[in-house]
Structure formats: C-alpha cells, structure tokens
C-alpha cells in the first residue's frame, strides 16, 4: 500500500516532563535577563574592558546564525535547484532558521548596552564596518524568513477564520486578505527565496570578517584573512547536519517514523561540503604555517585540535560510510559532531582566540551568562513545539490523500 506525507499540525500531548524541564530552564534564563535589564551588563556577566565580548556573542549570535544555516541551504536545494524530493524537510528547516534568527536578534539586543537603540544601524550607516553589514543583512533576512513562513500561516487559516462575538464581522475581510496574500506570495515567493540565499551567504561570511579587525589580539590559529570564506563554508556544511539532527529529534519526540530516505540522501551531500571546508582550513594552516602553535600544549592548541578532529574529520569519515547513512542513530551522532564542531569553532573564534594585550586573568562565562544562553535555547525549542502543534510544518502521513497535492512526495508508511 502506498501512502503519502503532507505537512500538518502535530496532534499529541503538549506537556511532557521534558517540556516542564525546558520551562524551568527558560524561566531561570528570564530571571537573569531581567537582572541584566535592571542592573546592567556588568551585574550579570563576567565581561570587562579587556574582554568586551563573551558567549552571548560567541554562542547566541555567531553560533546561532551558523546553526540556522539549515534554512538557506535547504531552500537552495529544494526551491532553487528544485529537488522536490526534499520538500518535506524545507518547512521544518525554515521554522528552525526563523526561530534561530529571531533569538539571534534578541541576543544581540540584550548584549548591546543600549538595547533600545537596536534600530540605529538602519539609519546610521557605516559602510566600512563588518558588523554593520552583518546587522543589516540579518535584519533583512529575518524579514525575508517571516515572509517565507507566511504561506504556512495562510494555509493554516484559509477557510478556518472563525472569530467570535464583536470581531465576527472581520471574518470575511480577513479571509479575503489571506487569499489575496496567498496568491500574491505564491507568485513572488521566488524573489524572497533567492534573496534569502544571497543574504545568507553575505552575512554568514561577514560574520567571519568581524574578528579580522582585532588583528594580533586574535590567536594566529584562527586569525586569517580567509576567515569569511571559512565561516561561509562551515555554515553551509552545518546546514544539512542540523536539519538531520532536528528531524531525528522531532521524529522521536512526536512519535513519527524518521524519514530516513530523505535524511540519508541529505547526509550523502555532507562529505563534499565538509571536505572543502576541511581542505581550506588545513590548507590555510599550512600556508600561514600556524601548525607550529599545535606543538605546544595550550588552551588554544587543544581547542583547535578538538574542533578539527571531532568537529570535522571524524564526522566527515562517518558521513562517507553507507552504514552510517542508513542508521538513524549513527546519522544522529555524525550530525551532532558537525554541529558540535561549528559551535566550538564559533566559540573559539570569538572567545578562545581573543587575547587582549593587557590581560588581568582570562574570561570564563558567568552563571548568569550561561543561564541566559541556555534559557534562550529552551525558549526556542518550546516555541518550535508550540508552532508545530498549531501549524502545518512537519510532514505526517496524510489520511485524506488526494493526488496532485502541492508538496506530496512518496514516503514510508507509519
């Protein structure tokens, strides 16, 4: 018997023990966030004049942007190259990117001293600043992501607008508006999809340009003029592993069968990309002869080795194995390693590598900083859950299968 997959809201019990744990972590983070807003950055973080940037920039912003790369890589694969085979994973990847960037924007806002001036870059331009470029691109890309998500909203609400009481007169105009929006969007969506990919390549690479201006303050193992290229390549290579990772977790959490057919073929695209990244990373190391720093035992050399060995080389070898691609567990492990590698790379670039000329001890994040970071991640996961429970994001077995649906593809039966 042939069955078909179609995106639909998840119908499961929302509150599980895991959800309560996430709520607690999120509340703890919100507490420290409140303290930051009331008493200033110094009250919550270990930042000082020597170490102006910590994990809120290194993890929440830099790693956050990189790990949300699944959005533009799957959009490029599914929509630009029209590999419709992958359509089932485009929506969850889009949602992850959307939430990821939303939290990146939130993290930036709380890390800057004057959060209420976050809009300043929109009218006060500085073309020489890499940060300005990142800021503007992220703002536009976030808007594009919301536009890309709109069809999912219209799909959910067309024929489902039932406002009650005094608002009931709005039902018809709203319905018309949704239909109009849907039609307009389906005609113009390609503009936003391409724009999304272009904007992503721009700011993913510019994020790498950020630390170049720190010059000799950054450890030579990471400080290189090709940092923008390395950032772009690592972002592209973490895109699909991130999609695999969350797809497997979602399948587990929502009791669905993992879409191994799609995930394995996604996994088979990873090695060439990861390989190119590794080639540039190692090539750069030999051209600048920075491998000499690896001979000495230091935080920098250990972190660099862990990053390249466990974050790139081992998962690269794993993704080349057919047995790994076929097994959900091993695929999960390999994807997690790539994610770990990119996360560690961003932490290394922004925190480990940064050595100010006058140092009074090194920086280690405070409990408050870590609380806010993991709190934001918990909120992101919770919001993801709320949205997939209410909107057609994740593909499930379609009971009312009708041929010729827009996004239907062959899938395995539940």
């Amino acid at each position, binding site marked *: 018997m042939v069955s078909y997959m179609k995106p639909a809201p998840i119908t499961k019990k929302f509150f599980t023990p895991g959800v309560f744990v996430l709520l607690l972590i999120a509340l703890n983070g919100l507490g420290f966030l409140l303290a930051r807003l009331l008493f*200033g950055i110094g009250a919550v973080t270990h930042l000082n*004049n020597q170490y102006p940037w910590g994990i809120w920039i290194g993890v929440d912003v830099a790693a956050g942007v990189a790990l949300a790369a699944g959005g533009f890589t799957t959009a*490029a694969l599914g929509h630009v190259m029209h590999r419709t085979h992958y359509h089932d994973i485009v929506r969850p990847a889009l949602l992850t990117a959307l939430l990821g960037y939303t939290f990146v924007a939130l993290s930036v806002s709380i890390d800057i001293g004057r959060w209420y*001036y976050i809009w*300043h870059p929109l009218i006060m331009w500085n073309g020489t600043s890499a940060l300005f470029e990142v800021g503007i691109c992220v703002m536009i890309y976030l808007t594009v992501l919301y536009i890309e998500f709109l069809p999912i909203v219209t799909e959910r609400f067309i024929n489902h607008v039932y406002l009650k009481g005094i608002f009931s007169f709005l039902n018809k105009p709203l319905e018309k508006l949704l239909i109009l929006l849907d039609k307009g969007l389906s*005609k113009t969506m390609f503009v936003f999809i391409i724009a999304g990919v272009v904007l992503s390549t721009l700011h993913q690479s510019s994020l790498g*340009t950020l630390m170049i201006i*720190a010059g000799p303050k950054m450890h030579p193992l990471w400080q290189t003029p090709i940092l923008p290229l390395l950032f772009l390549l690592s972002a592209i290579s973490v895109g699909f592993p991130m999609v695999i990772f969350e797809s497997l977790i979602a399948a587990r959490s929502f009791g669905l069968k993992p879409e191994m057919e799609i995930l394995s073929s996604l996994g088979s695209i990873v090695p060439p990309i990861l390989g190119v990244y590794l080639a540039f990373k190692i090539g750069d190391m030999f051209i600048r002869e920075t491998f000499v720093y690896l001979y000495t035992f230091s935080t920098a050399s250990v972190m660099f080795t862990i990053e390249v060995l466990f974050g790139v080389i081992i998962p690269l070898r794993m993704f080349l194995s057919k047995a790994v691609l076929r097994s959900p567990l091993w695929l999960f492990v390999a994807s997690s390693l790539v994610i770990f590698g990119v996360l560690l790379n961003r932490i290394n670039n922004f925190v480990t590598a940064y050595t100010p000329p006058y140092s009074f001890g090194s920086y280690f994040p405070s409990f408050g900083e870590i609380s806010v970071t993991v709190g934001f991640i918990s909120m992101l996961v919770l919001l993801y859950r709320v949205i997939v429970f209410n909107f057609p994001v994740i593909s499930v077995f379609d009971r009312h299968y009708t041929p010729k649906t827009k996004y239907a593809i062959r899938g395995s039966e539940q």
Partner: protein
Amino acid sequence: MEKQNRREFFKLSALIGSAITGLSTKSVKAAPKNILSEDRMGVLVDTTVCVGCRNCEWACKTAHGIETQPLDKYNDRSVFENMRRPDVNALTVVNEYPNPNNALLPMDVKVQCMHCDHPACVSACIVGAFTKNENGAVTWDTKKCIGCRYCMVACPFQVPSFEYDKALNPEIKKCDFCIERTKAGKLPACVDICPVEALTYGSRNDLVKIARERIRRNPDKYFNHIYGENEVGGTSWLYIGNQDLSKGVFPKLGDKPAPGVSEAIQHGIFSYFIPPVSLYALLGGIMWITKNRKNSEEE
C-alpha cells in the same frame, strides 16, 4: 500562463537588481571620509622626563567632570605596584616600569587613547559613532552609540572602556584629546598641568621632528624608536623612552593601519554590489532552468 510567469520573473528580477544597485551608490557615499589634515595635532610623551607625579590623572578627571581625590593625594606611589589601564573613571593612567639602565630611575608611562591616524574604532563602529577629527582627535558620539562594544574588540591598544554597571545609557569612555578645550584655544588638560613638560602638544609632523632630534642628540639616553610614528599607520600620540616601548609597555604592532585587511575584504565582497547581484542573478538562472526541466519532465 507559464510564459506570463517567466515575464514576471524577469521584470521582478530587474526591479530588484536596480533597487540594490541604487542602494550601493548611496552606501559608498555614506562611508566616512578619513580626514587626515597635514596640520593635525599630537602629543609627544618623553617618558625619560616624566616623574610619575600623576597630576595629569587629576587634571583629566577634573576636565571631564569625573569625581576625584584632591590633587595632593596623588603623590601616593603605591598605586604603581599594579599595572592599571584607562577606565570609565580614569581616561588616562600612569604606570611605572623598571629601567634596565638605572634601577633607581624607573620609567613612568602615561597611557590614554593614542588617537590613531587610521583608527580601528572609526572603521569598526556599526553606526559610525566615532570620528577622526581634523585636529587629530578621535571622538565618540553618544547620540549614535548602541553600546555593542565592537570598538573595544577592534582597538589595537585596548583603550575604549564601557560602563558595564549602567542599565540605561551606558557610555563608551576614552580620552577625547580635550577637544572642547583645544577648540577654545586651550591646551589639553594633561599637557597643561604637567610640571616637568614631559608632554609636548603640537603639530604631529613637528613632533616627529622634535622626537628625532632628541634621540639624535642623546643616543645613549634614548632607545632609537618613536612609538606611534608608524605603528598601525601612525598615531597622534608619540612616545620616546629609554627602552623599547613595544616590549611590555605597548603591544608590538605592525605599520599597516588596523582596519586595512577587514576593509579590503568588506569592499571586495561589496564592490558596487556586483558580487551579491551576480549571485542573485546566478541563483535566479539556476532556479528558472531547473524549474523548466522539472516541468518538462512532468509533461
């Protein structure tokens, strides 16, 4: 229907392309011009003259409305036991270092913003809150600053400081070269008060000549290097001393301006928006071709 779509595709692509190129000319103009006047001012710090009285610290605080102890408390030399850095409450500080030639005559070095000729902070600031003024001063504009602290990441001398304990309107604090005083024809507060004339205020070009002359006349007294003459493309504040100041006192820096590489990359990626627009066109082309191929497969 299909033809219609294709025509719309081209129309929209052209529209967006022109919109982006329109933006580009604007952003090129918006880039801050680096005013480097021939008459820009500077200060020559002769560390062999400085006696470490720290009157400059007092004068600086007084001139900038920072709370301070009375001047006579400043002769306490125990503060030299630990190295200090400029802070939100002290835009300049004096540190003491051992003198390899004469243990009884330690070297005292006043530090503050160097007022680079090609400042990393001006290049890095996301909103362009920093300005290199015509008189050489690098100043900060509270009306623009968003408090991102990228200037602190960028500064090769690790000078800007941030009011971490303020929840509202925290400021970036650093030496402003007493721009209000110099505009009114007065000397910078620290230069004005210095009792031994360790600080000389004047045109930077003249100061370089004076420094060279002093080293030439007293080759035994001075280490033959003017720190700041060429470091990161040159700074308004210049230092001479009895030892190599790039060893331990100041960071050892190259002669290239700090923002050079990142600006080159930035302008490379965005040269007249050609790379992003080409990428857009390329992706559009791929999208159109693959779509047609898919459609013909379906038919």
